[in-house]
């Protein structure tokens, strides 16, 4: 089980993604293009050196 508050996301602004933290982005109201824009921003973070992993990598 993963507990983390969901953060509503606007297409233009990605909320802070902190090292050692769990970030759940609520994209349910966004279109596919807007979701891809958010994912591109996450890719940008990774390109800048921030490691990103899925929730399954968390310790149970």
């Amino acid at each position, binding site marked *: 089980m*993963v507990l983390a508050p969901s953060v509503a996301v606007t297409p233009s602004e990605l909320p802070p993604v902190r090292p*050692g933290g769990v970030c759940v982005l609520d994209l349910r109201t966004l279109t596919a293009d807007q979701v891809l824009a958010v994912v591109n921003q996450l890719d940008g973070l990774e390109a800048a050196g921030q490691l990103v992993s899925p929730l399954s990598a968390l310790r149970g």
Partner: protein
Amino acid sequence: MNVLIISASMGAGHDGAARELQRRLRRDGHDATVVDYLTAFPLGLGRVVRTGYRWELRLAPWTYEWTYRLWYLLPVMAAPLMAVLSLFTERKVQRWVVETGADTVVSTYPLASLTIGRARRRGRLAVPTSTFITDFAVHPLWAARGVDLNLTVHPQAAGSVHDQTGAPAAAPGPMVDDRFLALVPSRTEARARLGIPADARVALIVAGSWGVGAVRRTFDDIVASPGWQPLAVCGHNKRLRRALESRRAGWVLGWTDQMPALMAAADVLVENAGGLTCMEAFAVGLPVVSYRPIAGHGRGNARDMATAGVADFAAPGELGAALVRSLGPDGARRRAAGRAMFAGEAAEEVARLAGAPRPVEAAAPVRSRHRPVRVALAGVASVAIGLVLTSVGAGIAAAHGLAVAHPPAHSSTAYVAVRLGAEAAADARVPPALASAHVTAIVSGQMAALHPVAVGALAAAGVDVANGGWGPHRGLVWTWHADVQRSADAIRDATGGKVRTFAPGRSINGFALMSAS
């Protein structure tokens, strides 16, 4: 030597082990008395407990699964339960000890073990006590502190109860009637007696004396397995018997005392509880397959028997393959491992314990003139404690990371997930983008049910898919589990794999922990 054996009329398993222990003790020259723990409750509450348990298994097995898991998550709740049980039943248990002149007390029922263990620890029971654990899986309620000796059906279970209690444990093996050990008729004789053709492939289905569980589906699955025919024993469940007889396939029986002959005639046993009948099959040397087990101890036993290598555990849809496997080398190995369980003699262990030193002396029972008030207060207190621990206590535990996944200490990684809408999930560009970004997609059960292709595409692209619950939940807190399970099933159906991460969008309590565990 006088032995008091406390069983419970909850199905036939506890009573079966108790009666067999009684028979063996008497054979060895001892006096043994079997009593029903449920009769120790005042005001007929024992009957209420039994009836409630029976209907719970039939109508709402998920609630039994909750309570079964709850003890693993919050073993601290055992203390208040023990206190309440003792308040209701300990006086009667002590009276039984006096009336029978017992030199030792054996329990074959977990709640009775909690009661005698507590009495022993508090110096209110002078004679040594033991528990004969009839289940393969040792649930925390079986592991009663204060009990002097734990006897189990398998060394794996003995190790488990010793780890949980620190008390001595031994594995004398299952307690089954001699009819299953030495007096089993030949296959030819048994089939002739039952009218079963010599060349038929027969799977014997059992579901306990109450005939509970998904027996109809198991029956149908066997009928659908090429070359196999079911031989079903429905116990006292007349409705089940009528339902199976209407299928006009195989053989269907009600309650019977001809189990040795039925086992001799069958090629394999298909069971759902890991109960006494399962142990009898081990004695006969009949291969055992656990299938569609009942909630709680049924699943636990099926898992632990498979781990111990004495039974196969088939997933839904895989019964046919398991039946074939049972006739080959795998089945032979498991049969040998099952028969090897009958290595000891529980009656001798009990007799030895009765002659052991008694370090704890009994204190005189204290009589209260305010018993009805105490009973009422205990009832209210137990409900309150249960609710508080299940909600607030579990929430605190969850907040501190217990049973909840969390980042490793000093991690430099960010763990990211997105909750997706159906429209975005259905876009072919999204799944590969999420997979490339190492981001989890949290989907609801509703989305998986309505858009299985889109959700399946996420998994197919390598995206980590998490269960976000069914959707907005407006029901009662205890119906939430059904939503979680329903969403897990829908996502599994869409992705073809089990979803291991549950990411709720709500506050957490004991019900949530149990749902997700």
